[in-house]
Structures are given as C-alpha cells and as structure tokens.
C-alpha cells in the first residue's frame, strides 16, 4: 500500500514559503502526548486508508461505523476502473511515526451520501466537495473500545454560533505554513470559538481556521458541557480557510441505510427509550364514531407514529378494526402510511354481511421497508345509504427490528 496524501478538492493553494511568524489562523497542532489518545474526543479518531489515498475519520453513531469525506475513499474522477476502490482500511488512533499494520481493520464498505440533483447542479456547488462530501463506512468488527462518538444533528446551527469547536485529524501538511507534518500523530485545530458561515447548503466555512490535506474526513467537534459531539466532517480548505460538512437531520439518510448492516442479529429487538420492544400498538379510534351514511367521502382517523428510531423501517404492520354495520358492502376502508403509501383494507365486498371485523390483518407487504415514523391515517367511507356504520375501534401495530445502533 503506497498512500498518496489526498489533496483537498480544488482548493489546495499551498503557501510558497514557510512562515516563521505566529499564524493568523487556528492551525493544526500535534496532540500533546500519547496518553490523551484514550480520552475524548481524541479516542474516536483514526486514519482512513485506501489503495490510493489517505485521510482521516472518526467512529460515531455505532462502534462499527466511521465517518469520513467522500473524496478520500471514492474516486469520482476515475476514468478507468471502479470509482469505488477497495473498501477503506481503518487504523484506530495512531500516534507514531508509521502505521501499525497489526491494528488495521478492513472495513466491508461504505455508503456515500449523494442526491441525484447534485449531479446536474449547473452551479457546481452541490456536486463537489462542498455538497454532501461525506461517507459512512462500516465494518464487521468493532472499530473502537467503548462507546462511539455522539452525532450532533444540530451541528449546522451550532457551528454558526460562537460556541467552542475543534477539528481533529491526521494532516500530512500544515496549509498555513506549508510545512509537511510527518508521521501519524493526531493533530488538533482548536479549541476555538470562531463561528462558521454558510458556504452552500450544509457546507460551512471559516476563514480563521486552517488544517491541511490528510485531515479531510476528520471531525469537527462541538463542546457540550464537559463532552464533545461530532458536528460535521472536514471536507476542504486552504491556507486561510476550512470548510466542513455540518450535520443535520439529513444525515439520518446515511445512518438508516447502514443500520441493517451493523445492527445486532437480524430480528433482534429494538431499543426505544430504553425499553426493548419489537412493535407498538397505536389506537387510531379514540371513541366509537358513526360514519356518515351514504356519503362518498372519507372519514379520517389519523395517528402520528413517532416512537421509533430514525433508522427503523417497518418490518411488521398489522391492522385490526371493528365496525358495526348491517351491510358490510357499503364500506370502503383504506390505510394510508407515511408519504402516501396505502393499502385498501375493504372495498365494498361482503354485501349484506353484518359488521366488518378485521382481526390482525397483515399489511406488512405494503409498508415493509418504509420508515415507521410519520403520519398514518385510516380512512373509512360508507358509500350507500340505509345502514349506519359505527367504527368502534381500530388499532395499528407497527413493528421494526433491530435497526438501531446499540446504546
């Protein structure tokens, strides 16, 4: 493996000569001693190595996942061969002249965050490093001892304030001085309290913070009390500037996709607010209600489902309901899930059969794979006059499996 330091996309304007005066910006400084490497937030860091590039990364959200910058691991400019390359190798918290191969953990792959519309962006701002230049790598082995770093999904707001922030990583050069940084010693840039400004979308920039290539993919931390939370990923810079992709709830699209790969054995219970459960029941009808007779319009019973983890997708959806009527054929009933997906539960079948009882009907086939949280609505019509239908109860059961990181 012959690593080449990954230059930061399009912005590498190295200083021609080294400067001896104190830098005007916050610049990378080697973490003081190896003893700190087992403390937070340093212990979350690592080197991300591919067959062609070197970058930084950090273990967050799950012990088996690491964040880095997409341009470190994905070669968007490849003219021949795969853009994907080999899955990157993770080196946990190096602090030495050379990487220790015995500590290397090959990842199994990564998810690259990308919107189709970024590809055709005529301004080019979302399609490059300053769009969603972030990946979430995954391994079949723990990448860290102890709990992973916590994501700050409010990072895009917090970084805009004068709160305390810090960038860590493994730069191979100091952009400000132009001097090379030898070895694999963790550097920190900060702590500081410089507010970042919006560059584009969730990409934020600061002209008072400097890092260096090789630091790409490293975290920017926000201080919360005595601890640090991961608020974004360093994606670009130059001698007078650093650019980070800041975290927001958008990042949930990444964690949702990776969740089925790193979760504990499939089918294991999900932990919701500390309570182990595989499904929850949601009453959709709070009190018996007569359905307007012979009026071809829906009567709606809406339920907002918000008990699950962001990553949790529906693996079980069952519906039970009880409608009193003398003519089942009058009724049309549908269940509509988040985003508009729906299933017809009853479509005027049954003619004069009394009462419509649906007992634990499995509708998983329609709703499997969608995120469980969101608005669910039961819609009922009594389409023919002459028999009053009363809905007495309706209960939706939504189940997910272990698609969340362990606490």
């Amino acid at each position, binding site marked *: 493996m012959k690593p080449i330091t990954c230059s930061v996309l399009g912005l590498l304007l190295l200083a021609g000569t080294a400067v001896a005066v104190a830098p005007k910006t916050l610049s990378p400084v080697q973490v003081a001693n190896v003893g700190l490497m087992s403390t937070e937030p340093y212990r979350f860091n690592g080197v991300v190595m591919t067959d062609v590039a070197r970058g930084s990364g950090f273990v967050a959200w799950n012990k088996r996942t690491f964040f880095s910058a997409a341009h470190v691991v994905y070669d968007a400019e490849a003219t021949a*061969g*795969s*853009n*994907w390359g*080999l*899955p990157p190798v993770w080196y946990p918290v190096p602090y030495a002249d050379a990487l220790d191969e015995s500590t290397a953990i*090959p990842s*199994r*792959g990564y*998810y690259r965050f*990308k*919107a*189709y*519309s*970024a*590809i*055709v*962006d*005529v301004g080019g701002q*979302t399609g490059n490093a300053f769009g*969603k230049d972030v990946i979430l790598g995954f*391994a*079949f082995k723990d990448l860290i001892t102890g709990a992973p770093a916590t994501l700050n999904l409010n990072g895009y707001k917090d970084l805009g304030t004068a709160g305390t922030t810090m960038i860590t990583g493994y730069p191979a050069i100091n952009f400000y001085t132009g001097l090379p940084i030898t070895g694999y010693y963790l550097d920190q840039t900060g702590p500081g309290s410089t507010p970042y400004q919006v560059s584009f979308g969730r990409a934020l920039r600061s002209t008072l913070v400097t890092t260096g290539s090789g630091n790409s993919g490293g975290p920017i931390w926000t201080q919360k009390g005595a601890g640090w939370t991961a608020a974004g990923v360093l994606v670009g810079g130059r001698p007078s500037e650093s650019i980070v992709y800041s975290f927001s709830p958008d990042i*949930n*699209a*990444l964690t949702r*996709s*990776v969740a*089925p*790969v*790193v*979760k504990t*054995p*499939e089918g294991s219970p999900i932990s919701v607010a500390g309570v182990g459960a595989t499904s929850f029941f949601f009453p959709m009808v709070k009190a018996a209600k*007569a359905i*307007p*007779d012979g*009026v071809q*319009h*829906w009567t*709606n019973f809406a339920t907002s489902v918000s008990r699950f983890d962001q990553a949790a997708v529906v693996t079980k959806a069952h519906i039970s309901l009880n409608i009193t009527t003398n003519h089942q054929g009058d009724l049309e009933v549908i269940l*509509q899930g*988040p*985003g*508009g*997906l*729906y*299933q017809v539960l009853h479509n005027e079948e049954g*003619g*004069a059969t009394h009462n419509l009882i649906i007992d634990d009907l499995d509708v998983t086939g*329609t709703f499997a*794979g*969608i*995120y469980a949280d*969101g608005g669910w609505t039961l*819609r009922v019509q009594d*389409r*023919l006059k002459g*028999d*009053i239908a009363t809905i007495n109860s309706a209960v939706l059961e939504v189940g997910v499996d272990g698609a969340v990181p362990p606490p």
Partner: protein
Amino acid sequence: MKGPRGVIPVAFVCLLGLGIWTISRNRPLPAASVPQPVASGHVRPPLKTADDEDDFAAREKADREVILRDWEELQRWLHRVPPPSPEEVRTRLKILRNRWAALDPQVLAETLRQLLDTHADAPTGLAFQVGVHGSLEGWPTLRVFLLDVLAVSDPAAAAEIARMTLEKTSSADEYAVAMRSLTHPGPVRANDKELLDRFGVMLAHAGWETQPGFAEAFDLPRAIGSVDAARTLAAWQGNGTLRRMALEEFAADHPAAMVAALASAEGAALDGSIKADLMARIDPVDPAQLAAADAYLRNPELPAEEAAGFLKTFPLRSATTGDRLYGEAPAPYTHDGIAAGDRAALEQVNRWLADPEMQRYRADLEPLQARLATWVDQAGAR
C-alpha cells in the same frame, strides 16, 4: 333502502352501488377558478349528526375554504417586502402540508386540482430537495409544492390529477413530482409499462437534462425494478454520471434483473468499468447470478482491465444513498446478507483458484481470497 334480502333487491343494490361507484370515481371536479379569499377566522363547523349530509357538505366546504384561504395568504406572504427567508418559506410550507394533509383527502385532491388549473405559481427561493418518505423538503415553486401535497391526498384522485399534469407540464420538477402519485403500490399504481413510458418521455424532453427534478426522477427505474427499466437506463446516452448512479442503485436493489439487463444489447454496450461494477453487485448466494459472474469472467473476450475491476470490488457492497423521490433511501444490504454472500463468494474464488483456466486471474484472485476470508472471519465472530 336496501329492503328485504333477495335476489332482485340485491341485484338492484349492486347496480345502484356500481352506478354510485362509477359516478363517484368519474364525477366532474369543480371547474377551474381563481381562488377567492375567504374571511379570516373561519372555523370548520362541527358535524351535528353522523348522517347529516348537509353538515358533511358544510365540512367539505370549510375544508376547501381553509385550503383556498391558506393559498391566498401564502401568495401574499411570499410577495411581502422584505421577502421571507428561504428557511421561513420552508417552515411555512411544511406546516401547510401537514395542515392540509389532515383535511378530507378528496376535498384536498379536488382543491389542489383547482389550484393547479389556475396555473398560479411563484418561486419559493428553495432548491429542489427530497426528504424522507419521498416527500419534498425543498420546493422550487408553489406548483411543485401543490404536487408534493397531492401525493398524500386521495390516491385515486391524485393519480388522475398527476396524469393530467404529466400530459401538460413544461417543468421537469413538476413532472418528476407528479409521477410520485403513480408509483405508490396499490390499485391505482400505474403499471410498469406506463411508468417506463413516462420516464422515456422525460428522458427525451429537450432542455430538461440539467433540472433537479429530471435528475431525481432517475430513482424511478429502481422503483420499477424490471429488466426493461435497467435496459432503458443503459440505453440512455445523456449525463453519464447520472446514468451510472442510477444503474448502480438499481443493481444494488435488483441484482438479478441487472444481470439480465447486462446480457441485453443495451447492457453489453456499456463501458467496461461500469459493467464490472454492476456485475460485482450480484448476490453470490443465488446460483443463477453466480453462474452469470462465472460466465462473465470466463469470457475470453473480457478485457483484462475490466476483469481486474470486477475482481477488485466483487462482491461490491459500497453504495450511494440519500433520500429518494419514489421510495425510501436505498438500504439494499444487510449484515446477514453480506455475510452469506461473502461466504458464497469465497467458495467461488476458491474454485476459480483451483481451475487451470482461471490462472490468468491469479494475481487478482489471491488478494480477493484474502479479503473475503477476513470478512468471513469478522462476520463469524460477530
């Protein structure tokens, strides 16, 4: 009304029901008109009795007035000086979508149709952005917003209005969002042929290729999942990056269909590096897909570079993801699925290494064998 139970009354009721059903599903919607402002502070009247059709009509009228009043106020608010910030617009539109989605879905669909027919529109200052469940987080225009809300209204009416929009619109963003109402599984979901035909119309539309809606609609082949959908993608000669990402997301979700598409003329014409990545996404647990990969690698005409690309990434489990317009964010792989695939792939690599015919690939096969052995060990250790 339905009277004594018997054959004739039952037949009568059936005919009556069919008639009402037909009328209901085909009844004319309100004629297009310019939304009229309504008095502020209007409150929906409660229903007095369940079967009071007049009250029900009053409620519908109130719902319609809520939407029309919101729409009028929204347009005035967007034109205020100074104009609202993009984040203020986003917040207001999200609130409005939730508020409207809680109203009667048929009234909502009909009123949205009425508003769309007026062709009233305004830019919002927001970029086109897809969010969770395929619902938008950013609506570049108010008409795109209306079409986004349409997808959570009455499914049958939404599909009908979406089709009308698809026939008329000159906006790629509107076209892409309107198609969402045809993709929801269920009785009114458009069939694969219609969806693919409409996708083809979009691909051929001059001037749309750089529009965000056009790009986001490339999630449609994945939502369809058929061999024909993959072939259509492969045949398209437009933006190569867009095509490649869509092909890869398709292959990750539907590897068997992609294998079949690669065997077609359209698939065969793809660039070698793309074919290598797509073939590397097969599920090795499926004997048919594994046999296809074996035949692919044994093909004496396979360029060495393409073979090396395949053996470098096989089984390729890195992927793109993000919120998508016609389904949830791609999550095609699971821990157990990858682990089983790696075990099957390792067995196949061992067979290739033992096969004299495959010795030309030894330099690539041995590192692949080592990688797979590591991953199998890791997965086995949990």
